[in-house]
Structures are given as C-alpha cells and as structure tokens.
C-alpha cells in the first residue's frame, strides 16, 4: 500500500523514482520529506519519475503541487516524468497538467533543465 522512493543522479539532476501509491499519510509524507532533504542538500533540479505510481489521491496531487512550488520558490526546477494514464488524467481534470512541466522521455527531461 505504501510508496517506494529511490534516488539517483544524472548530469546534475536528481531523479526520484517513485512507485506505488502517493496518498494521504505515508506516501505524501515520504515525498515531502524526500524533496525537503534534497533542497537542504542544495539539490534543486529534481525530476520526479512517476512511471511506477499506480495510484494518487487528492492529498498526493496536493503534495506534487507543494513540491513544485517549494522547489520553485527556492530557485530550483521540478519536472514530472512518465505519467501513467491515471495520473495524467487526474492532472488534466484538475487543470494541473499545464502547470507542471511533464516529460515522457528521461533524456529529453534531463536536457530540459536549465544549465546554470
């Protein structure tokens, strides 16, 4: 029922590979803590790979939004990668699809981060 997170670095970008459920409670808290830890370490270019996320509720959607705004407010960038159809549809319904920078290819997602 819970969410799995693993972290890797590619060309200065931190990729969080997420799997499972991002829901009220454990999943949302894990995501929030992971993003907070990255920012504390100065890692402000974050790519959330949602390819293995099979379920997200309104709390999880809210957590994605909070992560996006938190990273952006600290001068960083957060993008989404590999949305499943369900997550894609939820972001469409909630009009968030155009708010996020959504990619479906890791290489192009990495390339899309600003090089400063």
């Amino acid at each position, binding site marked *: 029922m819970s969410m799995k997170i693993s972290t890797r670095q590619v060309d200065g970008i931190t990729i969080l590979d997420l799997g499972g459920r991002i*829901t*009220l409670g454990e999943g949302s808290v894990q995501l929030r803590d992971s993003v907070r830890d990255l920012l504390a370490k100065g890692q402000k270019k974050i790519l959330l790979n949602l390819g293995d996320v099979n379920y997200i*509720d*309104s*709390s999880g959607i*809210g957590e994605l939004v909070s992560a996006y705004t938190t990273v952006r407010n600290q001068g960083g960038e957060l993008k989404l990668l590999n949305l499943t159809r369900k997550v894609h*549809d939820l972001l469409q319904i909630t*009009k968030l699809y155009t*708010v996020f920078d959504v990619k479906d290819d890791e290489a192009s997602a990495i390339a899309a981060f600003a090089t400063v």
Partner: protein
Amino acid sequence: MTGQQASRITYTLDSSLDSVNKVEQTAEQMARKAGVDEDEIFRISMAVREAAVNAVLHGNAYDPEKRMTASFENTGADLVIRISDEGRGLDPATLPDPLAPENLLRGSGRGIFLIRSFMDEVHFRQTHPGTELTLIKHLGTAPTGD
C-alpha cells in the same frame, strides 16, 4: 461493527487511515462485483476514498471519540455509497473552486471536486453534528472520462 440487510452493508469505523483504506477497498470490491469496467472501478473507489478522507480528516479530525459510518448498496440500478462523520458539518457552497487560477497551486482542496467529477450524483446532508455524503453511480451508463 458490521450490519447487513439485503444488499446493503454498513460499517461503523474509527477515525483513522486504516478505516479510509477499508472503505476504499470495500468500494472497489463492490464496483468490481457490479461488473463495471476498470476505469470506473478506479473512479468509484477514488471518490469513496476522498469522501472517507473528508470524513476522517476534515470532519472528525482524527478524534478517537468520533466515528465514520460507511454504507454500500447495489440497488441494481445504482451503486449508492453513504459516508457520514460526526464533525462540525460541511457546507459545500463555501468550498473554493480548485480550478480557479488563484487556487490551482494550493496544496489541498481537490477532494470534493474529484468526488463530483467521478460520480453521477453527489448529495450533502447536514446531520447535526456531522455531514453525510451520498455518492451515486448509475449502472449501465458509459464512463464519461471527465
């Protein structure tokens, strides 16, 4: 505590995330048993989960003294799910529109919107104290997709 009458099943549950998960799973099983397709099962179980989260988190505020009641009924024509709490009550007219530009980046406030998006009918009733949400999915109708 469980009570069963005809095809209706009712649970009285404590205000916890375990209860939310149980209600969600029951909705999923009910929808699957009713023969609706996978997309509709997802929509129904998610709407019910959001209603349960609303009851436990916003209604009862995780108060161990307060209960959530969830009933599930397949009338043959509809799936009818009722979720009630013992909180201070919810006036849906006061909820901000999560699609308004000024609200898009809020970290919360999408639950009721998703419930309304995914179910055919949603009714609110004030129970003093508390709120009862009735979620209805008409059987035999094609999924709308939005």
